[in-house]
Each structure stands twice: as C-alpha cells, then as structure tokens.
C-alpha cells in the first residue's frame, strides 16, 4: 500500500499480529491475527468481513486497546497507540475512538436508568462541558430516540433502541472512529436498516469513520466503501468494495460469495459444495501463482498470493 500522508488518514494498522498462548508445559499457539495492515480515512466505512474465528473481533479489540498486540503497530493520527500507557493518554484516545458491540444488553448496567451512560461520558471525558442536558437531547434526537426513554431501565427498551443509545453516546463524544462489532446482528431485518442508514448519514455528514465488523456480506456491500476479507487471522483480499465483490480473486473470497444467499436468485443445488475443500483450494492457488504476499490485481484491489 502506498503511503500518502494526507490529512484524511486517521488510522493506519501495520503488520498487526496477535498470538494467543495456552497450556503450561506444551504451549499451544493460536493465531488471532497475523500481519494485518490497512488504513482508515476520514468519513470512510471499512468493513472487516470474516467467519467465526477469523480474527475480526480480535483486530477490533486491539484497535480499542482492549487487547495487546503481539507484534505490529497501530497509528492513530500519526501516533503509535500500542505504546500508550498513561491513563491520561488513553483517555484522550478513547475520546476519539469508541466501540459499539453486538449485544447492547451487556453494555448497559441493568440496575441503572439508561441515562447513566450519558452522564458517565460527561464525568469521564468532559467534566467541564456546559449545557449537558441540551447536548444529550440533541444526540438522542439524531438517533430518533424520544427523551422519555432516557429514564427507563435497559430491560424496558428493545435491542434496537439500546443500540441507538450507544450510537448517540458516540455522537456525543463526536468520535473520529467508531468500531461497530456485529452491531446489528441481533436486530430484526425491519429495524436494522434504520440503524445502518443512520450510521451512514452520520459518517458522511460528520466525517466520522466506521470500522464495520460483520460476517454478513450483503450488509457489508451495502454499507462499506472498502472491504477487508479475513481468514484465520490473515487478510486475504482487500480494497474497493465494488471491485472485490465484482471480481473476487482469492479462492476463499470466491467461496464466501458462492455461499451468500440471495433474495432473488437460487443456488444451483446440483453443484457440489463442500466448505471443507477450501484449504486444499487455497494451497493450490498459492502454488499456481508463484508470487508472495499482497499483490495489486487492479487499482485499489489487493489479493494475498502466498503465505
């Protein structure tokens, strides 16, 4: 990837690796992420797509400093955040980068009214802020939540409403990057589009960037400008969303697209489809293409050609 240091560059991830060790005598190593590099720019939506165990959540957690990388760097506005240790610096970082997760019920403390999350934001990040009430009302209005809901307890609200409140919290902080980990997987089809459109609008109006972690390729296509395809901790294909979807090159990406159900077209049931065969196919692919590492196959479309 060419390095251009323009002002739009918010986040740059370089060679990010995470190994999990388990066992005491015979140490077992599990690869959470391996040599992952990508960039996120202002106002851009990047989707991180992978199946369970692909490392998509691990990467998100490393960016949020909830996990320490084994190797690699994460630069936020030019500053390496993997070495941030002081409480002050971390707070400053979280002021700009926030996460919203899959299960909104576990984010809220069920003993307190939902309003508490906003009060905590002020207490932690902006104790000197004025017009707090007004700012809260403005933020929840943007996500279509009525003020009376603020005095309710989490169990009295639906999953969608709680997700909206979490997005409102990010808005209140006016973050640069929002990491949305399987944000809408729990929501019903009829309600999730509202949240997605809301995110897209905020992104484009405010210049906020989103790292959208999902396993759903249909959603990924709808929301993202850039797509990163992950398999077993490694990126296998990355680049412009439309280019990847139109012309998937890596066998794994191809298989993913073959298995996406479409609401207009049916699968060919006669076609043999065995997910187990993919490892072999990938080996062959690497052997046939006597190249290594990431290669550009088109402008802004890169494919992994060898381990």
């Amino acid at each position, binding site marked *: 990837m060419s390095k251009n240091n323009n002002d739009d560059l918010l986040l740059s991830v370089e060679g990010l690796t995470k190994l999990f060790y388990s066992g005491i005598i015979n140490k077992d190593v599990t690869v959470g992420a391996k040599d992952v590099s990508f960039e996120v720019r202002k106002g851009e939506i990047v989707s991180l797509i992978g*199946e*369970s165990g692909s490392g998509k959540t691990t990467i998100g957690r490393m960016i949020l400093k909830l996990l320490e990388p084994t190797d690699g760097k994460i630069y936020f506005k030019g500053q390496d955040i993997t070495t941030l240790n002081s409480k002050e610096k971390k707070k400053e970082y979280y002021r700009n980068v926030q996460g919203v997760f899959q299960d909104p019920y576990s984010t809220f403390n069920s003993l307190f009214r939902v309003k508490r999350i906003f009060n905590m934001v002020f207490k932690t990040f902006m104790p000197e802020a004025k017009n707090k009430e007004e700012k809260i009302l403005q933020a929840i209005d943007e996500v279509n939540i009525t003020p009376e809901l603020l005095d309710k307890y989490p169990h009295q609200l*639906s999953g*969608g409403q709680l997700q909206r409140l979490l997005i409102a919290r990010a808005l209140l902080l006016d973050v640069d990057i929002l990491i949305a980990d399987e944000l809408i997987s729990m929501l*019903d*089809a*009829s*309600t*999730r*589009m*509202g949240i*997605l*459109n809301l995110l*897209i609008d905020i992104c484009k109006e405010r210049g906020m960037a989103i790292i959208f972690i999902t*396993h*759903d*390729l*249909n*959603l990924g*296509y*709808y*929301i993202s400008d850039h797509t990163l395809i992950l398999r077993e901790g490694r990126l296998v294909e990355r680049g412009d*969303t*439309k280019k990847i*979807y139109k012309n998937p090159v890596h066998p794994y990406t191809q*298989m*993913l*697209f*073959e*298995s*996406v*159900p*479409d*609401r*207009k077209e*049916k*699968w060919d*049931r006669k076609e043999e*489809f*065995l*997910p*187990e065969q*993919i490892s072999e196919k990938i080996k062959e692919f690497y052997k046939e293409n006597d190249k290594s590492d990431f290669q550009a196959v088109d402008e802004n479309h890169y494919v992994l050609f060898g381990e």
Partner: protein
Amino acid sequence: MVENVLELDDLTAYYKILKGDVKALDGVTFRVERGEILGVAGESGCGKSTLAKTLINREDPLKHISGEAILNDEDIMAMKEKEFRKRRLKNIAIIPQYALDAFSPTKKVKTHIKDIVREHQVKVNSKFWDKVKERFSLVNLDASVLDRYAMELSGGMKQRVIMIISSILDPDFMIADEITSALDVTSQRFVANMLANLRDQDIIGSAMFITHDLAIMYQIADRIMVMYAGHIAEIGPADMIMHNPSHPYTEALISSLPRVGIQHKDQRLEGIKGTPPDLIDIGPGCRFRFRCKYATERCTETPEREKIRDRHFVSCWNHEQLGSDSNE
C-alpha cells in the same frame, strides 16, 4: 394426489402469564404436503418458534387454547403426552434452535447419539451404527467423528450431526428451527442444502424450515409462510412471495433486505418504522396496521384470508393496493 402430512386448523396457543394472555399464536391455519419444504418466516416475536413448540413440546406457560393439528390423520393437540411420545422422532421430529450448545463437551458424539435414541426405545446395535455411519457419509462426515468429543467439532459439523440424529428414524415431518442462524455463511449453505437433500432422498417426508433469514429460506423452500405477531400474513409459492409479495408486511420486509449489488450510494433501503405490538390481551384487527403504509379504517377488523391465486393466500383488506413495482 396431494397428500397432506400436517394440517393445522385455526390453531391457537397462548402464554398464560400473570399479566394476561400473550397471544403468540392466534388462529393459524395451513397444511404441509408430503415432500415439500415449507418456509416459516418472520421477525422475533412473530410466533414462529411458538408454532414449533406448540406442535412438539408445550411447556408452561404455553397453553393450547383451541384448534387442531392433524398429523397423519390424528389430532396431536388432543393427544396425551404419553401417547404423543411414541410419535416423536418417528413421525414428527425437531432440530431445535441452540441445539449446538446442548452437546456436553465431555461426552463423545456416539454417547450423545446413544442417549438420545434410547429415550425413544430404539435398539442401539451394530445395525443401528451402520445406519448412522451411512447417514454420516451422506453429509461428508467421517465415521471417526463418532469417537470425537463435541468440543472438537466446528459449528457446522455439530449441526450436521444433530440433523442426522433428528432424522435417524425417517420422520414424516421435520421441524427445523433456525438451523442456519448460528453458522458461518459457508456452513449455512451446506446445512440448508442438506435439509433439502434429506427430503429429496425421502429420509424425511416433509419439513418446516423456520428462519428469520428470508434469503436463505428462498434457496430451499417450496412455499413460504410469512408470520407477523402471531398471525399468518401471507402464504404461497416461494417465488411468488419473494418476487410478488401481496401483503404489505412481506413487501416491506423483502425490500429491507440488503443484497450484493446494492450499495447505499446507489440505492437506499428502508426498514419498517415502529416495533411489533405487545401481544398481551391484544384485541381484534390486523396486527400490522400500526406500521403499515396502506392501513385504513377497515384494518381495525381482523382481515379475512383471501385466495389470490392458486396456492397463494393473503390476509389483508388492502392487498390490491400493493404496487407490482416491487420487482425493482
């Protein structure tokens, strides 16, 4: 001649709780023909899982209120539990939601299989294991899987094992409740195809495929039934439902589904505003009217089911208002 495996007539089941009756399944009538896969679609709280539970295992506070469910000429709603027990697995079987988590990590797969089928008075002998192995090979599982622990298997493999166990006695009717929901996309395709293959090979007579994911349902269902808040909104051939929906809810639901090729920059998909109604002591009328853009005065009356073409029924007073431009 078409043979019906299952016929439901005005089946009603409520959750009887302190606050009142949760009318989760209210007057549901449909039939399942031999050899077909009926897809049951709808969002959380629409009654699709309640339907499965009512048919196979009613536990408090879920109570059968009225109506019949005829399985092979017998009303299973009127049957005593002891009597019905004999039908489970042989005539009617379920692949339950969250079955993946039900495997104990410390037991071998074969112990699980043994435990389950013994409950149903099946002789576990070498002939039985031969049958299991034969079925395993059908779904590309090696016989060695039997000697492995559940925790060593991936979600997709576990789901395959569960489907083989549930269908081991060749049931006439299989309920598949959200069997693809917890799986990765690649396993989803395999598992969905597997259900259709079991039907093709006459291992299961017919099936009810319950899922919230219309796109995957469309891949294997012959007919689709769309439920909303305990009522059937629409039921008809899968292609008709997906390409020519006739109920406002179906129309809105399908047009809210993203698909590869639609990006927000080019086309904006809209969801459905509002949330489903509270089903406690809900009165008459169309239950979708609060969120429906076609709603009129008349919708406070419960709509009658109307046949709009062969095998296609819709419950909506205003279905004629729906545009035919839903084909994009």
